[in-house]
């Protein structure tokens, strides 16, 4: 590699970490947001689970009162 080529490519290697970091950071920010959205979704999911539980509990008590009434 002659000196002119060395000059032409002089900034490539020093700038590589910054370029890689820039792309990695975009990816990281989006990833964090996706994880955040997922946790929000999971929270709502668990709420639905609670609803189902309380609903089945109500049905049981409903059956009990029905049998008492008989």
């Amino acid at each position, binding site marked *: 590699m*002659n*000196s*002119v*080529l060395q*000059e*032409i*490519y*002089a*900034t*490539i290697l*020093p*700038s*590589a970490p*910054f*370029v890689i*970091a*820039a*792309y990695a*950071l*975009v990816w990281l*920010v*989006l990833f964090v*947001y*996706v994880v955040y*959205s997922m946790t*929000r*979704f999971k*929270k*709502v999911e668990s*709420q*639905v689970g609670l*609803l189902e539980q*309380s*609903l089945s509990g*109500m049905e049981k008590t409903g059956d009990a009162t029905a049998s008492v009434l008989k």
Partner: protein
Amino acid sequence: MDRSATKPAVGGLADKLALVLLATGTVLTTVAFILTFTVASPVIGAKVSGVELIGDQMIGNQLLLSQKIFYFHMPVAIASMVALGGTAFFGIRFLMTRDAVYDMKAKLCTEVSLVFILATMATGEMWTRFEWGVWWTWDPRLTTYFILMLMVFGYFVLRAAVEEPERRATYASIFGIIAFVDVPISFMITRLIPSSIHPVVFRTDSGMSPDMLVPLMCSLFGFLMIAFGLYRFRVRTEALALRVEAVKDQIDE
């Protein structure tokens, strides 16, 4: 709870589209990433002391790798501004109809915008650090974009500071609308103040060759699609949360 809240339409055309767009956006940004480092011709910098044949071209200047940051930096910046446009739009819709759904949508638009603002700031920082040799400079473009970020922070601080849902929605809508005024300013500032060191890209004579334009456009539309997909996913989640709340209220009665 706001009585007048209509349920947002979920699972309709917008959501079917969102899934397709999210997938397409992922593919497009990946394609853009590959094209950026393979096809797009490098930008030349300072003159060197000689000329050398590389491939089939005579090169007499430094080749710059740092410019590759730009292929992701500008698209995420545009996506953040478009998302803020959504905040202003749904803010206006809320003030017209008093429908809590629009307030929720405005909030989620701002959330997506914040994500892309952070991505813009991160990529911009890397470029500034390498090319200009500083972490921060009070360049007009950097400054106006920075205050845009501060306004988005302010938007969420304002939301957190008001208890009543209706009042919170009104205040947030108003602030979202006035904060949007900074978006065109930030976009136009490099043309208004020529002393800015930030390069002007969007113009008819930008001198971008097709091999640079294709990855840029792939990246731009890819990120816009990803932004829309993420936004719709958040809308569906929040809509589901509203429905769960409503059913809970019914059970309690």
